[in-house]
Structure formats: C-alpha cells, structure tokens
C-alpha cells in the first residue's frame, strides 16, 4: 500500500510539474472577415497618413466654419496603409494617403482622389548653424560616415518608421541614401519616430537633430525646427510649384465608391478656391480638379 501511495504521489507531482510548464492554451481560430461597417449618419470620418492629417484637420475646420454638413471628424493618424484599410472596411469614409495605393489596396475597390502635393524637407534642430546640406553630405550622415555637419557641429540622425512615405520620396530624390535598420546594424542605434508630431518634437528637443518632415509641419514649429536647403535649393511653395524642389509627394483621399457620394460636398469644398487657399496656407500645392 505504501509503495502504491508513493507511486501515486510521484505521478501526481510529475503531472503538476508538467501542467505548470505547459504554457497557456493556443489562440482560438479568428472570426471570418469583418462585415462592412455601416456609415455613421451625420458624420464624415477621415483618418490615415500622418503627413496629411494636419492638413485634413485644417480643411475640416474651414469646412465646419462654413457650416458644411455632414460634420467632418479627422481621427488620429493611422498611416497611409491603415487609412486605406479602414476605408476599405468602411470604418471611415475617407482614407488619407500620402503614397500610391498598392496592388492589394487597389484590389479592394478603393478609389483614389489626389488632393495636394506637399514638400518633404530635411529639418534640423533650431540651433544647427548650417542652412543646408548637399545630397553627398546627407548620404554620409545617414550612412554614419559623417557624424557632424559641415560646420563641425554634431549631427544626430532621426529616422521615421519604414512605412513612412517621406522615406520613399527622399530616397528617390537622393539616390543611395541608405541607413541600416537591422538590430546591431548601426552602432549609433538611431532613434525611430513613428509619427510626424513625434518627429517634430524630437527635432525640436535634440541638439544637432536631423530628420525628414513636411514643409508645412516644420514651419509650424517656428524657430525650434530649422528647414534646410538641399543642394542649394530652398524648399518653399514656389520651388515646389516650379518643380525645382525635388522631394515631393501627393496627398490623396481613398474611399469606397459609395462613400465618395457621402463625401461629395466636403470634397467639393476641398477642390474649391477656398479649399485651395487652406492647402496653400499649409505649404502644399492644391491639385487642380478631380
């Protein structure tokens, strides 16, 4: 009897130990695809690219001041991909994007409407003593081959997340602009910012900070953030308009076709002269007509 009791105890202890190490149960199967979210009566919701969000808010405010209906609500930024996805599922009416749609996004039946073109700029901490950088200097700074500005002041490169549209247009304008993002790939352990607002805050608070932003957003920061020339070209509305400023991107809205009908009145305002004025005030160029 004692032997059997010992065996029972041993088996029970082993079972308890094994159960303690077995981990949590696996996740259940996910629900099938989410049903289309119905439109919210009386509200037009916009969300998406962080580069477009401040401009969309300005347009919404101007639209609201004019007494436009339905009420336009601009959500916190989701990124262009998040805006497109939310628009495709009907969670919002208009998705804000600052890059072309991918094939997968186009396959979801989204309709893209370009609204404006903005300037992506190289911005720096307000105390940086240089007024501009060349493409070669920028490549050297990003690659870590140079750690200082031309003036000799230390430069601290700040990065946007990989999916940020500004990265793509800057890389297209400055070929060979490379930075290692792999863990341990760069001994500087560059800081990554995930939103335009956080990038601007970082530029304003980091002496020697250098990063990308939008012209309008950088101007709003005042002297805390300095907008740098690139290869001797000063970023401005005029250089954007005459095409001499090379780093540019299109800001657009995407929507399911039936939601475009709901947004027609708002989009008419955006493409009106009044809307164009709001866009220019944000240092972006309005796109003429739809």
């Amino acid at each position, binding site marked *: 009897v004692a032997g059997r009791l010992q065996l029972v105890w041993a088996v029970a202890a082993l079972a308890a130990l094994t159960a303690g190490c077995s*981990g*949590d*149960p696996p*996740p*259940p199967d996910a629900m099938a695809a989410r049903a289309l979210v119905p439109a919210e009566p009386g509200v037009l919701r916009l969300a998406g690219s962080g580069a477009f969000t401040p401009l969309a808010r300005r347009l919404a405010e101007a639209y609201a001041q004019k007494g436009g209906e339905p009420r336009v609500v601009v*959500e916190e930024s989701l*990124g262009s991909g998040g805006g497109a996805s939310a628009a495709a599922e009907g*969670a919002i009416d208009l998705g804000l994007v600052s890059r072309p749609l991918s094939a997968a996004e186009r396959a979801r039946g989204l309709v893209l409407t370009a609204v404006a073109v903005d300037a992506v700029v190289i911005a720096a901490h307000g105390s940086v003593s240089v007024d501009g950088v060349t493409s070669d200097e920028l490549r050297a700074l990003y690659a870590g081959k140079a750690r200082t500005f031309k003036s000799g002041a230390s430069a601290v490169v700040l990065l946007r997340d990989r999916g940020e549209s500004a990265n793509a247009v800057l890389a297209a304008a400055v070929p060979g602009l490379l930075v290692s993002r792999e*863990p341990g790939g760069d001994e500087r352990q560059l800081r990554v910012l*995930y939103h335009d607002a956080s990038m601007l805050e970082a530029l304003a608070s980091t002496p020697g900070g250098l990063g990308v932003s939008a012209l309008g957003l950088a101007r709003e920061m005042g002297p805390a953030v300095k907008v740098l020339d690139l290869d001797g070209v000063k970023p401005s509305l005029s250089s954007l308009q005459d095409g001499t400023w090379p780093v540019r991107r299109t800001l657009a809205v995407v929507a399911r076709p039936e939601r475009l009908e709901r947004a027609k009145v708002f989009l008419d305002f955006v493409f009106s002269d009044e809307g164009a004025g709001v866009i220019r005030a944000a240092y972006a160029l309005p796109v003429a007509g739809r």
Partner: protein
Amino acid sequence: MTPLKLTSWLRSRLFPLVLSTAVVVAVSAPCAFYLRQRLDRVEALRADASRVADVLRAEIEARPRLWRYGTGKLSERLSEEGLGRVSVRVLDGDGFAVPLEAGPLPPNAWALWGRAEVSTAGRPAATVWAAADQRPLLGTAFHLFLAFALLAALLGTVLYVMPVRAMAGAERRIELLLSRLALALQQEERRRIARELHDGVGQAITAARLELLAASARAALPPGSAETIGRRLDEALDEVRRSTAMLAPPALAELGLARALERHCTSFGGSAGLNVQCDVEAELPMMDADVEGACYRIVQEALSNAVRHGHATCASVSLKRAGTGAVALDISDDGSGLKDPVGRGQGLEGIRERAKLLGGEVLIESPPGAGVRVRVTLPAQPGEVRA
C-alpha cells in the same frame, strides 16, 4: 556436486535494479532540464506577450475606434523594441485577428504559448498570444538525454558487472572449498574403512590362521585340508591388505610422500617389469595431506596406465616445486601412447578429477609413438584460496 548458482541468483535480482537505476539516471536530468527550460520559456513568452500588450494598449488608448488599422506602425515598433522575432497573434475583443507583421512560426512547429490580456477602461479590448517553437528545446533535451544515456550505460555496467564478478569469484572459492571438504571427508572415510578392514577382518583372518596351525599340529584335520584352508586364508589376508592399501596407502603415513613414491616406483616397476626413474626434489613445500595423497594416487594411476595400455618398458616420475606454494608432478613413459589423443580414458579422467578438486591443472601429451606425458600442477595448500 550441485552448482551453487549464486551468481545467476545475483544476476536475476541485480539486473532489474540496475536497469531501473540506469533509466532514472538517463531520463531524470534531461526531463528536469526540459521542464525547467520550458517553464522559463513560458514565462518569457508571457513577458513578451505583456510587452506587446503594453504597446497595443497605448495604441488603443490613442485610437480607441481605429486602433486595429494602425498595426503597420505597431509591427515596426515591436520590431524596433526587439519583439520582431517573437511570433505574435492578436485577437480583438470581437475575436477578429489583428494583423501584425511578427516573426513567423515555422511550419509544423510545436508551439508553446504565453498569453496577455489588453484591457482599457476596465474592459477587455484584445488578447495577445506570443508563441515559440519548442522543437529546438526538445532537440537540446534529446542531446542531453543521449549524453546521460551513455553515462547511465557506463554506470549500469559498473554497477552490474562488479558485484557479479565478485560473486562469481566468491562462488568459485566456495565451490572449491566444498570440493576440498568432500575430498577430505572421502579420504577420512577411506582411512576409517581401511582401519576397520585391517584391525577387524585382517586380525580375524590372522587368528583363524593361527587356529588352523594349532589344529593341524594336533592332527585334528584330514591330511591336505590344513594346507588348502591355509592357502585360502592367506589369499583372503592378501586381499584385505590390497584393499586397505587401495583405500589408504599405508606407505604415505609411514614413510612420507617422497619415500612412498620411491618405494612405489621400485615395487611397481619390479612387479610390472617397468624401469621407473623416480626423482623427488628434496626442498618441496609443506603439502596438505590431500595433496600428497593425490600425488601418490596420480603416480599410481599413470604408471598403471603405462603398463596396462601403453606396454611401456621405461617410465620417469618427477616431483618438484613449481613457483610459490605449488608442486609440479611429471610422469612420462615410452609406451605406445594414447588411442584417444584427448586422453578421455577413465584413468586419466580420474587424474583430472583429483587435480580439479584441489584447484590444480593437468596437461596430458601423447605425441604419436612417443608415449604419454602427464604433467600436473597442484597447490601445496589448497585451503589457502585466493580471490
């Protein structure tokens, strides 16, 4: 003598014990390692899931309605925070999958899961599962098992072989001692019977012979009867003497081994027409009585074989010291040799049996046409058995 079978008894009881010990040694450490590592892995996965849940909670609080669509940046943020290689699955409060670009789980992975809940404002918003493939851990545990299995095999071999070998040696010594005891009892019994024959039957026949002589002197018997009865009594007395000599050679007790051998060689050679050369070393070790008796009997048997089967005319007997505490007996003849080259005749088997009982060794050689040579090595004191 019936074998003791102590070794096989020990084997039958030791084997299951050693086997179970080896299994415990081989299995316990790898199992403990695996369970400990698995427990650590589960805790690490729960910690990873909690870290993902913290990031997700901040995202949900920032975008309560649309957080599900901002996971592109979230994926990259997880990657930047060192969670990019963790396989993560997230289900929102409605049970829909939240797409996150996390480290993939290998196909056919044997996943281990750690879970963390994401709640905002006291309400469950999502659940995060972090997964890891435990096959590499199992592989490591298996390698550990192989190493410990080897250790267990070595340990089991030592635990099994050492006692069994010790027991086998002890069993051999016990069997030898029992053989010696049996031999001693047999010799003692023979001596007792010989005494009884000599003192009882022999004395009775001698008395009858004296009575016959007295009766013959008184002319109480018919003529010729006394001579006939006398011959019969002499023959009976001779038979008694031969029998007592066979049972316990009196020469050994009277003369000692060396002289007894010399006398036997001389007397047997004379009676059998065999020229026997006897050479006994003067400085022989002190021998047990059984060893001396065995030497005497072996010489008797070998010389008898030489005459009866080999028709030998010459023979030599040699008894010398062989190393420490042993003697070597060498008997050779010029007879016709053995018909059976292995020497399986009854007489030679008797020689082998005697030597074996005392722990000795026998070597019998019979080259064609060169007679027979019997070489026997015996311990002088077989009672001093060594391991």
